[in-house]
């Protein structure tokens, strides 16, 4: 990358040579934004540390005497850094982001479970009021299986084995279970 202002080579959000903030890329990867390795197993303290370090570099207070275009870039960077932290902090949105490049599923389409699973989810959601204990037990069993499957997929992927295809479907399964659990909690 070359600094838009002094045309020297630049790494990171701010040019070391002239101090100009660089335009944030709209398609920037959130791990890149925070200078973190693309991993599911992410240490929460490392995330906070990286977030604070980048936040300081791009903070609007540092650019008050700069041109309007740089002040605007500073605000855009700050928003991007905040979003990156929010998405990567939560294991579910982090997993979804790694698997699909977005923090959450689309409003339309998205992965469809097989009919048997959907049938069972319908049963669980409809039985939540009548048999809350049984539904909760079944939800916990299914969730433990899903957590284990997710863990295995990401562990393999981080070791360079396999891809993340179908991980978004596992995450969707978790949301069906969460709806059933919410109904149990309300019963």
């Amino acid at each position, binding site marked *: 990358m070359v600094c838009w202002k002094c045309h020297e080579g630049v790494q990171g959000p701010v040019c070391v040579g002239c101090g100009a903030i660089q335009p944030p890329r709209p398609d920037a990867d959130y791990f890149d934004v925070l200078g973190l390795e693309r991993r599911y197993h992410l240490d929460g303290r490392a995330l906070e540390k990286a977030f604070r370090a980048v936040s300081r570099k791009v903070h609007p207070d540092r650019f008050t005497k700069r041109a309007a275009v740089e002040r605007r870039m500073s605000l855009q960077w700050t928003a991007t850094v905040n979003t990156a932290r929010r998405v990567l902090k939560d294991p579910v949105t982090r997993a979804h982001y790694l698997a699909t490049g977005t923090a959450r599923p689309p*409003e339309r389409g998205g992965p*469809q479970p097989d009919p048997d699973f959907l049938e069972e989810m319908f049963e669980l*959601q409809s039985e939540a009021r009548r048999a809350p204990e049984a539904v909760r037990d079944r939800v916990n069993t299914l969730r433990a299986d899903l957590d284990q499957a997710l863990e295995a997929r990401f562990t393999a992927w981080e070791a360079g084995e396999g891809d993340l295809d179908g991980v978004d479907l596992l995450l*969707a399964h978790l*949301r069906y*279970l969460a*709806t059933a659990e919410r109904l149990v909690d309300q019963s």
Partner: protein
Amino acid sequence: MAYSQKVIDHYENPQNVGSLDKGAADVGTGLVGAPACGDVMKLQLKINDDGIIEDAKFKTFGCGSAIASSSLVTTMVKGKSVDEAMEIKNSDIARELALPPVKIHCSVLAEDAVKAAIADYRKKKS
């Protein structure tokens, strides 16, 4: 987030809750899920020999918008032909209920449920 008055009306007084005989030859059943929120909806249509939808029932246990969307769509399809019902778009439902952008998937769920029920009916007939 505030629900619109129309969502509240359907939520408090949902139309056509229940079920039809899944095994009957003139009943199509659609079971669909919204991956975005984890809600599941079952919608059933009773269709006569002229291809007119005589009855519609639904069950869903999701949020207010999902209940309102399915309630509304059952009132929309009754009396329509199967072909007309296939034309119903989620945007029609979302507009009628004034759903906010984060609840659009509820209207998608209702549209998909109608299409799935019709597909099931057609499969039975063929």
